[in-house]
Each structure stands twice: as C-alpha cells, then as structure tokens.
C-alpha cells in the first residue's frame, strides 16, 4: 500500500522563510508585470471552487479604471464539509496577509479585507494580534496596505462574492446581477479582487518558489496542490494537502474505510461520484473540481437522506430573491419526499431532473446554479434509493 500512497505536499502549511515577511518584502521589490507574469506562468486557478485563473482576475482589476481598489479575502468558508480555511488562518495567517499585500501592490489597492465567517469568531483574538504585528511590520518597510477583518453573520450565501460585498457594505446578503463583475464593480462599487484564503497563500508560495517548481505539481489543467478537507466515513478525517489531478480511486483507497459507495466532491454544491466511477474520475478542473470538501459515504448511508439533507440546506440558505432557487429548492425537496412516499410516480424524478437543469441555467448566482450538481448526480446514480 505504501508505494501507491498519494504524495503529500507541504506548500500551504510548510515553513517558507526564517525571516518574518521576507518573501513579501522581496516580492514588493519586483515589478507588477513580473509578478503577473509569474502568476500566469504558474497556471494558478482560484481555490474557492470555480477555478478562475488568478493572474487574469488580478490583471483585469489592475487595468480597471479608478483610483480606489480593494483586495478581499473570502474566508466565509460555508460549504458543508470544508474546514481548511480555518486551519490556514490559524496556522499560517502571515502567508495570507502577505498574499493579500502582494495583490494590493499588483492592482494598486491600499486596503484589504478579510471576510471571516461568523462561526469563526473565535479566531478573531489571535488573528487581530497577528494583524497588529503585520501592520507594525508594514510600517517599518513602508508598505501602505492595511488589512481589516469583517465578520459575517452566518449566511451561506454571503460566500458568493457579490453577496459578500453587499454584506460587507451593511446590506442584506443578496447576490448582484453580473455583469458588472467584481474586477470593475466590487466592494463599494470599486474594482475589487476577491480570492479564497488558500489562493492568497498559493500566490505567496509561487513568489517564494517560482512558477516552475509550482507547476511541477498537478496536471496541465490543474496546477499545484490543494488542501482537502476529508470527512465522512473515513478512519482518518482531517486536512491533507495533496496534488491536484489525482484519480478518485486512489484517494478512496487511501482515505476510505474499505466500504465507500460514494464520494461527494465539493460539498453540497459539488458532485456525487458513485463507486463505479471512482476509477475514471479525476479531482481537478479537468474532472470534478472542489473547493476542498471530500465527503465519503459507505454502504450504511442512505443517499436519499444525504440528498434530502443537502436540499434542506439549500432551501434554507438560498437568499430567496430569484425564483428558480427559492422555489426550485422547495420543489426538489418536496418532490423527492413525494416520490419516496409514493404520492408521486417515480417518473416524477425525470421532471425534477429537468427542473434542476432549468435552475442551473437560470438562477441568478452560483448557489441556485449548483443545486443541480448534487441533485442530478445523486438522483442519476442512486435512483433506486430515491424510489424504494
């Protein structure tokens, strides 16, 4: 078993410099173009789940007209089964701050914000202490980039970037119409880069190691490594940094309890992969992408209950403004209940699958659009569990 073991990577949590903020200082001496070139070369894609090329996001924001720009770190880690950002902010907050400061230099921003999930309030004292230290250090090296923490209030939807801005501005956390995108119209209507916690750390590590070394990890479409939050039916739950692009069967071999029947990749809004597809599934942007959540289910689990649980979650966490998401989620949940009870014929599941597809096509934001991911993948692959 040991020779087939997945390679462990230690970019995110590993030591990177003996001198405090050394990499940041070195990077700040480089030109913006050089930094962007390195990022582009590295092929880094956002670690929040959607995988937008980071270099492009930064470049567009840098080019956007306007004096005032912002850097926002999305630490509203709300996806069920994800808990890696909490760990990153606990263990290596300096790397996060440094990544944000580099972004500030590239796009010309003087302010950065960390939008911290309400449930992570307990991290605040330590983070603030570390921030004070950062600000003192920034003063000594003449860096004009302040970071502030804004606390969320527990809404899943506020992890969606535009809803997050609304929340930061003191409004109801509802996604905006896009376009305009955050690169031109973000926090307070100003050009804003918003990235996941892990993305900022990756940026710093690319600056530290160079794009070539970063590219040695992962695959063509999915460069680098990723921190995974492994949970569910596994004897070794926890946080693991692994190379992107791994086949799912090897992951299950290593983390499963020997009886895995499905893996939910990417949390409630991700995809459910059944046992028969483990072999052909690659974890990465070319296959099934994930923001980090890997939930294993063994044969003792009812996939009906799993799906029902997800749908209840979405029903409650939808902001409620757009029709497909607000009403669609209720219909999907009530629909599978009706089929299970026999109030509706099993053919009704096909109607619901079509409905979930319409939700994917028409919902205003990623929440409503991605309900179909787990719904269709679970219903397709575990139809008999839905009916009987």
């Amino acid at each position, binding site marked *: 078993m040991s020779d087939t073991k997945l390679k462990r990577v230690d970019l995110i949590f590993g030591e990177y410099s003996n001198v405090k903020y050394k990499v940041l200082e070195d990077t700040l001496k480089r030109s913006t173009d050089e930094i962007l070139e390195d990022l582009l070369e590295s092929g880094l894609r956002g670690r929040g789940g959607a995988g937008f090329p980071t270099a492009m996001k930064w470049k567009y924001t840098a080019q956007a007209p306007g004096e005032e720009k912002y850097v926002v770190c999305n630490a509203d880690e709300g996806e069920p089964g994800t808990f890696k950002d909490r760990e990153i902010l606990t263990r290596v907050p300096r790397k996060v701050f440094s990544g944000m400061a580099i972004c500030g230099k590239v796009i010309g921003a003087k302010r950065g914000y960390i939008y911290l999930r309400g449930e992570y309030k307990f991290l605040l004292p330590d983070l603030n202490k570390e921030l004070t230290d950062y600000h003192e250090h920034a003063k000594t090296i003449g860096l004009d980039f302040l970071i502030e923490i804004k606390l969320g209030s527990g809404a899943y939807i506020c992890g969606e970037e535009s809803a997050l801005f609304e929340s930061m501005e003191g409004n109801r956390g*509802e996604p905006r119409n896009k376009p305009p995108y955050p690169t031109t119209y973000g926090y307070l209507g100003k050009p804003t880069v918003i990235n996941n916690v892990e993305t900022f750390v990756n940026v710093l590590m690319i600056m530290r190691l160079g794009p070539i070394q970063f590219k040695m990890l992962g695959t063509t479409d999915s460069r680098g490594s990723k921190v995974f939050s492994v949970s569910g039916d596994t004897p070794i739950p926890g946080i693991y940094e692994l190379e992107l692009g791994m086949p799912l069967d090897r992951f299950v071999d290593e983390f499963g309890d020997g009886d895995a029947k499905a893996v939910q990749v990417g949390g409630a809004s991700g995809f459910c992969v059944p046992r028969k597809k483990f072999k052909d599934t690659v974890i990465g942007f070319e296959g099934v992408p994930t923001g980090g959540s890997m939930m294993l289910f063994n044969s003792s689990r009812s996939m009906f209950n799993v799906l029902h649980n997800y749908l209840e979650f979405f029903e409650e*966490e939808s902001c409620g*403004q757009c029709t497909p998401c*607000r*009403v669609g989620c209720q219909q999907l949940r009530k629909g599978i209940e009706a089929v299970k009870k026999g109030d509706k014929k099993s053919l009704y599941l096909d109607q619901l699958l079509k*409905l979930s597809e*319409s939700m994917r096509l028409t919902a*205003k934001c990623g929440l409503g659009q991605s309900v179909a991911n787990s719904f269709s993948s679970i219903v397709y692959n575990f139809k008999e569990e839905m009916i009987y």
Partner: protein
Amino acid sequence: MKNTKNETIKQISLTIDGIQVSVDEGKTILEAARQLNIHIPTLCFHEDLCVAGNCRVCIVEQEKVKSLPASCAMPVSEGMVIHTNSMKVRLARKHIVELLLSEHNADCTKCYKNGICELQGLASQMLTGDHMFLDLVPEHKYSIDMFNTAIIKDDSRCIRCQRCVRTCEELQGVSALGVAYRGNYMKISTFFEHPLFEVVCTNCGQCVNRCPTGALIERNYIDQVWDAIYDPTKHVVVQTAPAVRIALGESLGLPPGKIVTGKMVAALKRLGFSAVLDTDFTADLTIIEEGNELLTRLKKALLDKDPNVCLPMATSCSPGWIKFIEHTFPEFLGNLSTCKSPQQMFGALVKTYYCQKRKLDAKNVVSVSIMPCTAKKFEANRPEMRSSGYKDVDYVLTTRELAIMIKQAGLDFESLPDEHFDSLMGASTGAAVIFGTTGGVMEAALRTVYEVVTGREIPFEGLNITAVRGTEGEVREASLKIEKTKPEWKFLDGVELKCVVANGLAHAKKVMQDVKEGKAHYHFIEIMACPGGCLGGGGQPIPTNKDIRTKRKQAIYEEDMGMSIRKSHENPEVQLIYKEFLGHPLGHKSHELLHTHYTPRKRY
C-alpha cells in the same frame, strides 16, 4: 447619438432572433428586443424602478454561453447572438412561471386583481394548465394584513418580485416595506413584521400601482357604497377629484390622456348617486384659505417680525405627504398649512352647508369621494376629520374602484353622453383642475395671491406659470418678484417669493432635509406624495409608467385651458359660500370646518 457630455455613444450591434439591431452601449437585451418589437415577457421588471433581475421570467438564450441570462439585467455586447424563444428558453421559462404559481395562492376567481393580474396573464399566455409541480401554498403559513384602512397586504399572493420594495425605497424614500428572512421563508415585510398601520407606511399606494398580483391592493368600499345607494333613506353625495377625470377612461378601455369628465358625471348619475359634485370646488376654496394663510404668515414674519411664525409654509393637500412628514420631520408640522385637503373640506361642507341649503338631515347623508389616491382612505378615517359632527367623508373610492362599479352596472362608458356636475359645490375653475398635477397647487395659489396683493393678474401669458410646473423626478425651484402692490400689502413690495415644487416622497425628503440643514430658503413649498402628483396617485388605473403619466398631465393642462374661469377666487360658488356661510377667509367658521391639526408620529 450624443449624451450630455457631447461624446458620441458607442453603438453595439447584435442579433436577436435572426434580426440585426444596433443600440447604444449600456442598453440591455430587453431594451434592444423592444426596439425590434420582440416581446420578451417580464414580471419583476418595471419601467419606473431599478432593475432587479430576480424573477428570471425574461431569460433568453445567448449563443456560446451556457446559462440563460435575464434580458432585463444583461447589457448588450458586440456580436451577441440572442434567441428569445428557443426550446431551452421556453422550457426554462415555463418552469419559472410554474414555480411562481406553485407558491402563489392562485384562487384567481376570489382575487381583487382577477383579470388584471400580470402573473395570471403570463400563465394564460404560456398555457401552464398542467400544474407540473406540487402546491407549496399549504406548507407556508401566509398571513393577511387587513388592519389598515387603505391598503391590504396578502402574503399568499406575493411572488416576491420586490417591485413594492423598490417602489417604497427608491421612488418614495419611505422604506416601509423590505425583505425579511431568507430561502423558503423569505418574504416582503415591514419593520419587525408590524402591521402596515403601525409602521412608517404613508398609504401612498405606489406599491399597489406596481404590484403585479393581488398581494397589495387597496381596501375597497364598493359594496358599502352600493348599499348606501340602494338605501332609500340615504342621500348619497359623491365628489370627484381633478385627477380622476383624466385617467378613469384607462380602466374602461380608453387610451391614456383622454378627458372623460362629462361621461364620468353621466356614469355617476346612472349609478344612482343623489348628487354628483366636484372636489374642484373645494380645491378653489383651499386656494382662498391657503393663499390667505400664506399671506398672513408672510405679514407676521415680514411686518410684525413675529419670531414664532413658521415659514416656509408647506401645502397639505396630499395625505401621503402629511403622514410622511408626521413620521419623518415631525418638527416641521407647524410649517404645514392648517388647511384640510379639498376632499375633507368638501366632506365637512356637505354635512353642514350643503345639508342646510338642501334642507337635509346630515345623519341621512352619505358622503362618498372618488379619488386617485389610497392615502385619502386613511385620511377620511382620521379621528380629527369629524368636524361636521359626523364622519365628514364616509367612503373613499379610488379611480379603479369607480371603474369596477361602472363595469358592474353594465354601463357602456364610451357611449355615455357628456353631462354636467350638479350645482351647489359643483362649479370649478382651471385653477382647481391643475391640482391634479405636480406644481398645480402652487400655480393656482400664485394666480390668486398675486392678484390679491397687486390687484393685477399674474403677468404670464395665458395665466400659465410654466416655471412652477413640476416635472416628474425633479425638484423645481422658482421665484416670483412682487411689485407695485396695493397699499395694504406694501411690505411685500419688491419681495421675491421663493417657491419649490416636488413630487414623489423621495424628493420631498430631499427638500425637507435641505430646509432642515438651512441649505435652502423658501416661502412656499408644494409637495405631492406621488410621482407626477395626483395624476400618478396610488388609486389610479394600472399599469402606470412615465409615458402614461405624461399623457395624463397633458390632459390636465388641456382641461385647465378649456375652462372659462381660470382663477380660484373667481369661482362663483366659492364667492357665494363666503357670502352665505363662511363669512371671510380664515374666519371662525373656516377654522371650525376647513382647518385641522397634525399628529407627530415615530419612525418605528
């Protein structure tokens, strides 16, 4: 195409349903489609409001894009290829309408909006007869707020398009309605879910005008009025506001901007009202009282140097505005004219002067008013509006309710002959007619005040004071220099009378804020709560948009120009009532019947 900066606006060309079109940069797909007369169905979209993009009914297919964007919110881009009626679009749109219906209490035959509901229209257009999805209504514990005298809010019919929220916030600056909770529990609600009568709601009814379904409606008094008409012991008097006669036709199949005064009078007589009278009469009376009140205040301020006099003086005809200022600027209640609104003056006089002249017992008289307004329903129910010893106005009907009554009676409105108002409180002037539009009260007051002070007609061609004729969506300031006064008004010689006219409560708020901060100095403020003034009132025919309101406005000025008497003080019946009954303006009798006081209210 040029914009204000004189830069050329970039043209974007795109293809919609195979047709090439070129539009200004920044326009949406929906606007481009409308230019081609392609009708994309919409629901949460409203011309008067900002784009929300939340119902998703207006989705279209864009080639090379995976999702279906909402055409109301998606700006055009070069080379876009759009399909508005593809298979994907049709199925998704049907799903969306079905979803809306599944959470909507669709007992249409019991609904006040049956026949004019936009959701119903969409459902019939798309033939959503098969009820694809489960009925969610029983699962939700919906509530009906029916405690308000003006507006009823039924959550079971709400489809959460948020038109009302945007109206209340953007157009009116009131924010009585907002979004509460999220997900399946998301609903439109008030501060701490208090009933509407306990919150800052001004009853302006603009939300009612824009609600696509029957979730927000006026409280209707149609049956009560029919009962009164059929009661042989009752003498039922009806008064009609200036803005009703230029809009009523819209609800009865006529185009906007059609003046139907004569037909309306004929219809009211056929419905069985004992006397059909005109609110214009008390509009003229208001001008006499309010004009004199303004002059008295100016005299106290300029001649007697009385430090307690409240200037600027603000008009008090619009009950939405009254409730707004009571909540929002209670410290300025002294600045409001103490004159009742024309409706309430009329009510008080019907049960006193009119009864006396007609030898009727006031307890047998039922006074009904037809108003373009929902706030008037609240106003009529204010406890202080009983100076005749009875409820001055018993029932207030909106323009829409009158249209319903006319339909109920089976009258062919278009073919009715033109008839005249009954005499005694039925005569009016052009000055009264223009009460129905923003700037009208100001103009009417100036026509009279200037003449009282100088003895000469106001020096504008055709008596048209275009400088104070407000425009929707703007605050209009104007000043009038008073010269060569009569000797008793010497202190006003050379004074520049500063006026401001605003419509829509969001603008009213701005004016009052400026006054409060000392940024603006006026003598006279005219405020109408609704966009465009009463012609855009919350009781007017649905739909409403800027185009329709502009046509109504033109009709009002047309009606004014067509009147033989154009100045309030020349109204013969007004002159008569002072001679026979009231004595003189601001006299004892006036104070008793025509003036009122206001109540400070809290924001929460």
